[in-house]
């Protein structure tokens, strides 16, 4: 198996795309890695380490590791702030690239910062006028993006997911109450401050609620899937909070707790002995004094409505299909599944698609952990090899 002299396009620079690009380049192929935002690494590069005095296998550091490998690999050409405009197939794929218009949460000082030292560039200037000082090595947004044409032998689509927008669950008050945050916010807070703090006063919270399945397994929303990553990140995070602050009072509101890690029963037992597990979906949340939050829910045992006050409420938002999936499905002539993820054609090998030569990997195909996305990216790379072998 060798792909020397072959060129493959990977769409998406998150963990699945990075892994696919790396595996292909190791096999001698040249890779065109197309990423629509300004940075490589996807969502996962912003995740924090959840180790206590031991590693809990969250996988966040493997994203850092993979990013480093990819940016150091001369066989991989990275196109930031770029998307596929058109693609045609006549034996090989003719691709037209265009500059994307990355959605940027406008920072106060006009400069956005990458999450990793391996993000190249690390700083992107979005609005020169607002920038008090332009950091060394910063690149202007207008300089990013590739326009032009490419010919590639195969395509791996690894364009990722969109975190559930917690504002949709109106009764939880996300973006209304300062101390109601999502799991994604918590990742960023811990990464930035090294500790879990309350956004309102930057103090250590003592009473914390985690609400699981926010946006997942929700018949009203029609989100009929388990996101597979929320139990893992929420419980690993809760476990770490408890490790650093024994006094922390943690409540976990859940439907069913999902497994993760190779030693899950032991980990879960440890969590159960140190946290409150309450099997119910909370009704609503109101702010009370000192930016605390009052949560109403039905008591599991007697069905009575109870109220409880928390310093911090974490909504464990799940994985939802990227709104771009529809366009990508059309562009690449592959199918969407009932849930809006991109559907493979082979239930046993989900990287294969209706368009021969196009393979999919990672959360664009459905919810997956970091390790799961990497494994599937490896599988997709192997499938590309086989495809090129047959279509020499």
């Amino acid at each position, binding site marked *: 198996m060798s792909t020397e002299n072959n060129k493959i396009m990977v769409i998406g620079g998150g963990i699945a795309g990075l892994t696919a690009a790396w595996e292909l380049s190791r*096999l001698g192929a040249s890779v065109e890695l197309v990423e629509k935002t300004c940075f490589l690494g996807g969502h996962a590069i912003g995740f924090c380490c959840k180790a206590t*005095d031991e*590693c809990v296998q969250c996988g966040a550091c493997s994203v850092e590791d993979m990013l480093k490998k990819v940016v150091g690999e001369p066989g991989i050409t990275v196109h930031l702030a770029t998307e596929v405009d058109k693609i045609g197939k006549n034996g090989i794929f003719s691709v037209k690239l265009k500059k994307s218009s990355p959605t940027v949460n406008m920072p106060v000082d006009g400069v956005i910062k990458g999450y990793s030292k391996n993000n190249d560039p690390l700083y992107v200037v979005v609005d020169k006028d607002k920038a008090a000082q332009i950091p060394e090595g910063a690149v202007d947004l207008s300089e990013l993006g590739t326009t032009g044409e490419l010919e590639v032998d195969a395509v791996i689509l690894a364009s990722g997911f969109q975190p559930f927008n917690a504002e949709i669950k109106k009764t939880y008050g996300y973006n209304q109450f300062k101390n109601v945050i999502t799991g994604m916010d918590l990742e960023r807070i811990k*990464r930035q401050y*090294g500790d879990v703090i309350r956004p309102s006063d930057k103090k250590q919270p003592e009473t914390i609620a985690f609400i699981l399945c926010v946006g997942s397994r929700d018949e009203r929303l029609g989100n009929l899937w388990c996101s597979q990553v929320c139990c893992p990140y929420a419980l690993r995070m809760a476990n770490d909070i408890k490790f650093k602050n024994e006094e922390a009072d943690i409540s976990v509101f859940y439907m069913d707790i999902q497994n993760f890690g190779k030693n899950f029963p032991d980990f879960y037992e440890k969590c159960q002995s140190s946290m409150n597990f309450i099997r119910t979906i909370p009704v609503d949340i109101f702010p009370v004094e000192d930016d605390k939050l009052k949560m109403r829910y039905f008591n599991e045992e007697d069905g009575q409505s109870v109220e409880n006050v928390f310093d911090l409420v974490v909504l464990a938002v799940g994985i939802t299909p990227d709104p771009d999936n529809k366009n990508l499905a059309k562009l690449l002539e592959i199918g969407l599944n009932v849930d809006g993820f991109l559907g493979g054609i082979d239930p046993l090998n989900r990287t294969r698609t209706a368009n021969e030569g196009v393979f999919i990997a990672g959360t664009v195909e459905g919810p997956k952990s970091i390790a799961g996305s990497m*494994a599937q990216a490896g599988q997709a790379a192997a499938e590309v*090899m086989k495809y090129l072998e047959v279509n020499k």
Partner: protein
Amino acid sequence: MSEMILSDMEEIKINTDVLVVGGGYTGLKAAKGISDSGYSVVLIESDTIIGGEKNPLSFIGIDVTAQDELKRLVDDVAADDAVNVLMNTRLVSAAGVPGDFTIRLATSDGDLEKKIGAIVVATNFSNKPLSGAYGLSLSDSVLTLSQLEYLLSGSDRDRLSNKTIAFMVGFAQEGDALVMERILSNVLAVESIGGCTTYVFAGNLKVASDGLERAYLESRDKGATYFKLKTMPTISPDGESISFIDPVLRKKMELSPDVIVIEEEILADEMNPLLAAILRIDVGPGGFLQTDNIHRFPVQSNREGIFVIGGTRDVQNIPTALMDVENAVLEINHLLKDGKIVVPKNKAVLDIGKCTFCITCYRLCPHGAIYWDNTNKPVISPVACQGCGICASDCPMDAIQIGNYSDAEIMDKIKSNGSAAPDDLRIVAFCCQNSAYEAGLMADAFQMETPANLQVIKVPCAGKVDLDYIMKAFVEGADGVLVMACHPGNCKSEKGNTYAEWRVVDAHRMLEETGLEKERLGFVTLASNMGIGFSSAVVDLENRLKALGTSPFNK
């Protein structure tokens, strides 16, 4: 070792034949995939048949697509001249290193010796009935999940029509998504038989796998009733009545099913411990052949050239196991290439003149990279060696030197202090290249606070940090020393961080003996993405040192 220059490299010829252990679905698929990429395969199976045909439902369940695929695969492998299938065959021993393993096989015609380049282990799960934990004995009305699957795929499946069937899952074990997947597909299959009433008693519904939430909802729409309970319902010893508190109605309920189906526990192959001993690979939780270490995922073992896939390494469904297969095929391609590989000459160099044959290096090498040659001398395989340096720091004769991290080079770094702030308290931090060193670079890139006179010394693994390095740093005027390693469970070399911590403990004792405060020496574990953690660790030490003042050795 990206800094290696090409003249330091050598080309080695290696054997490209591959041994696959296990003739089940994943083993067959791996054998075919490896053969398709141009390598010859020896596939061994302890049973008299491949493809698990003797018990076709052992792990495929009632998935018809998978069953058909398996049948095709058995034929494909049989027709493939590059795959040599040996049934009734077991692995007896494996010596050597990747690219050059010598294996001994026990076949029905006696022992056989073979040379191979890489090994893929693809053993199977076994299912253990949990009826005992429910206080039940198996009978016509108390079935295991496997028995039900067998019944459902046979001709007398209609025996189940018009029956009330109760499933039990998640009370005798925490369970997992694979057990739930099997339960759900069986519930759906039962519901497709006329007139069945289905109840599922469950602890946690383990739906964290593709399509399981939909399967659960579909089975509910088709009439299955689910009771999610926190504790096991009370079942009469004959299995004829089940009593429990309905968590929704909060009422005591009683049910009399015709058939109770009991969950099974999925266990690692009982051959695993023996295989692990023969192959010198680590055993992880539950007897699966991979530790819970992210650097091993998906298919790596602690030894280069030995890959673990599917049910060998974890509880997995078929699509996931097939991902493993493809990843193993990739790894085999990366390793064996066209039979020639280029390796650095000086990854780990043994000075045989200094060696006293004490076998410390052989015992400690976490990658099984050291072997004894025909002349009974230790050899470090440049293919298998990962350059961690654990052997070098524990060698009592200092007979091993590691690539760009020789003792002399590290000692030179300790001696040199080109700091811009020589008057500040001097801190030497030995940082593992995989974690703390990267975290340090991140702290720099993001302009996080670090002491002015901090000297970072990169090591390939914290396990490379010799006791001598720590003491030398103090002798050379360091006011404080940090050894910065990966978190336990995250060491690429499995135990390098543990060895480093032990050496710090030793060093603390020695510091006290010399009258130096042991607070000057710290051990910290970090991840590569913890820039802020790096910053606070070095600043914490600086603050401690400020209280202690300059080191008495620092004139």
